């Protein structure tokens, strides 16, 4: 097999930044205590977690006690939706949940379960052909009994960025909790929760060069929310379980670096992304960009190719040494067009031929150019296959 591989799937996950890894190491064997313990081992661990909480809070522009550490972005979304919906039901008999149709499954499947098991009424917001939610559509649908609204900050499949601050302002006016899944956005966009007018915001560390297995949820002080995982009193009674100290420390460091290096990272990624998008659309017939052409993540390029088997294209790319992703590909060989691409109104003939190329700090111009030379031939092959 090829020994040289080019990783172009940073939206799926990122390698851990060596500085982050170094930050984590002492908490496995030296400062390994349980933050809940009374002794000094525990005190040191507790200090580590609280320091991490402060670091994350600085990046979010919130108070430390508004940060809840979780095990991943999906858990954060689950806690936000289920916790806020059930609390709103209990406090004001709210029954309506409003989400976009292009949410990550962590949000949409949670909302669907709430509708199925707890009799919530689930309503989907319309999106435009770039997958964007318009604030006026939210305004039209807000009700007194709306329990929670959830609109993702930036979409993982198509990269489109939503007008979160405007939607948040509308919800705030009506006193309705507003959640945004910022798992994909946090690597590159500011996540100032005050500016964004959000009550809940989900993060996952591994999308921004932190480790897998740790995430966080911002919960604005005063937002009614019930715990989903019950047990000990960790995380202000919102998330039971012994704190994952090394990973929490790693997440905080990765998040801190993402804030202070944001401009540098974007200035590396965006020109590469624009070169990639431009060349693909020029060189490949019957190709379309999915998502918004401008208001999109700086490292994110996504396409559909008419009549192409997206799964076959991914295989061909992998064998040629390029690791990419797609909205329709599925590891079990049972491809279905993704909900997101169908929500954009793409016919299945196009939606099954999707390709997502996401760049990272290790991506070089040479790698992008090598990819661009290989892609047209492989797309043609996948059209025939």
């Amino acid at each position, binding site marked *: *097999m090829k020994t040289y591989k080019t990783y172009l799937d940073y939206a799926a996950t990122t390698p851990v930044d060596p500085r982050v890894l170094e930050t984590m190491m002492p908490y496995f064997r030296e400062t390994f205590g349980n933050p809940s313990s009374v002794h000094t081992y525990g005190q040191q661990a507790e200090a580590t977690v609280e320091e991490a909480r402060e670091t994350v809070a600085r990046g979010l522009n919130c108070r430390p006690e508004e940060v809840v550490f979780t095990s991943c972005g999906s858990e954060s979304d689950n806690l936000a939706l289920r916790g806020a919906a059930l609390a709103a039901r209990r406090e004001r008999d709210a029954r309506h949940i409003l989400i976009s149709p292009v949410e990550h499954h962590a949000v949409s499947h949670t909302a669907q379960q709430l509708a199925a098991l707890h009799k919530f009424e689930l309503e989907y917001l319309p999106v435009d052909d770039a997958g964007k939610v318009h604030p006026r559509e939210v305004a039209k649908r807000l009700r007194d009994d709306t329990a929670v609204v959830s609109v993702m900050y930036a979409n993982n499949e198509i990269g489109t960025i939503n007008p979160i601050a405007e939607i948040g302002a509308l919800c705030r006016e009506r006193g309705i909790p507003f959640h945004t899944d910022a798992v994909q956005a946090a690597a590159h966009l500011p996540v100032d929760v005050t500016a964004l007018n959000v009550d809940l915001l989900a993060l996952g560390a591994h999308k921004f060069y932190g480790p897998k297995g740790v995430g966080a949820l911002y919960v604005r002080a005063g937002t009614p929310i019930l715990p989903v995982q019950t047990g000990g009193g960790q995380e202000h009674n919102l998330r039971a379980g012994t704190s994952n100290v090394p990973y929490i420390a790693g997440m905080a460091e990765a998040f801190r670096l993402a804030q202070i290096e944001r401009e540098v990272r974007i200035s590396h990624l965006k020109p590469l992304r624009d070169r990639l998008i431009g060349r693909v659309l020029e060189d490949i017939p019957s190709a379309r960009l999915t998502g918004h052409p401008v208001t999109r993540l700086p490292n994110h390029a996504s396409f559909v190719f008419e009549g192409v088997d997206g*799964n*076959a294209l991914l*295989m*061909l790319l*992998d*064998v040629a040494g390029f690791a990419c992703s797609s909205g329709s590909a*599925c*590891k*079990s*060989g*049972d*491809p279905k067009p993704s909900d997101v691409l169908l929500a954009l109104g793409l016919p299945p003939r196009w939606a099954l031929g999707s390709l997502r190329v996401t760049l990272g700090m290790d991506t070089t111009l040479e790698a992008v150019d090598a990819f661009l030379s290989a892609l047209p031939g492989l797309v043609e*092959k996948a059209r*025939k*296959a």
Partner: protein
Amino acid sequence: MAETKRVVVAMSGGVDSSVAAALLKQQGHDVIGMMMRLWSEEGSEESNRCCTPDAMALARRVAAKLGIPFYAVDAQSIFHGTVVREFIDGYTHGVTPNPCLACNRYIRWDFLLNRALAMGADFLATGHYARVSPLLPAMGNTLQLLRGVDPLKDQSYVLSILTQAQLGHAMFPLGEFTKPQVRQLARDFGLPVAERAESQDLCFLGSSDYRDFLRRHAPGVDQPGPILAKDGRQLGGHHGLAFYTIGQRKGLGIGAPEPLYVLGKDAAHNALIVGTVAELGGQTLTASSVNWISGELPTAPLRAQIKIRYKAAEAWGTVIPIEGGRAHVGFDFPLRDITPGQQVVFYNDEICLGGGLIEA
């Protein structure tokens, strides 16, 4: 070491294909694992025995352990359009089809082979127990399909549909081994394979019986009709021709002085023909869609060892090639269960010469 080739291995998560992949990797080839997602009935999409989620997870682990890439390939619609369609059509027309053979013909050695070639592969390998002879000028530069060395496992029968072009891209790494040796190899390679119970059930039936499947997919297949003796006397009634097999004795629901067996099916009159054990069997058959693996039609009748089912004992006989891709076969002694729709396969000792479909 032989020249390095890019080889796609059809993986199933089972011992055989896993060991095949490991052997090819060990031989230094550039190996890619592929597993096809085959069709199952709606509502039991996960239950095709050839590609359950567990089997796929296992194949994926084997591939990871070997350090080879692994891809799942969607073959659901082509599988349905060929293998399942033929299965239903066969039963509708009173014959007993062999879907595994159809799968090799349409799916493995056509659809998947083309996928492999499109990936830049030189070969498609499977875990079948069979061999391909080396290409020798003495053999007229013709490739031969040979039996696997393990007589208990030989699978050349289901490969009798292969052409020279397909054989030229085929690799059967297990052909030189016996099943116990392959199990030992799996242990030696440290492969995380589970021993799947060998089942006669068809992969796409999931947990359902083929009769229920046919009732769902071939309305009219359970059309009752008469049970007739060879001389035309009506002895009883049947519940649908598809639900009986040649040679079957039980379940006919007829009281008779001596046991009666299913002799044949008269699809045109929807009649089941039964008779005594003495009447059962025949000494000749006609085969259609005959494939000669050499690619050349024999010019004279030939003596061969002949199999009329995958697991049938071989019988000596004479094969007379006739026009239109057909052949007459005469056996030295009568055989009991010559079943229309099954494949008849001809051997010259180790060499699988080809085969065809037994006509009604």
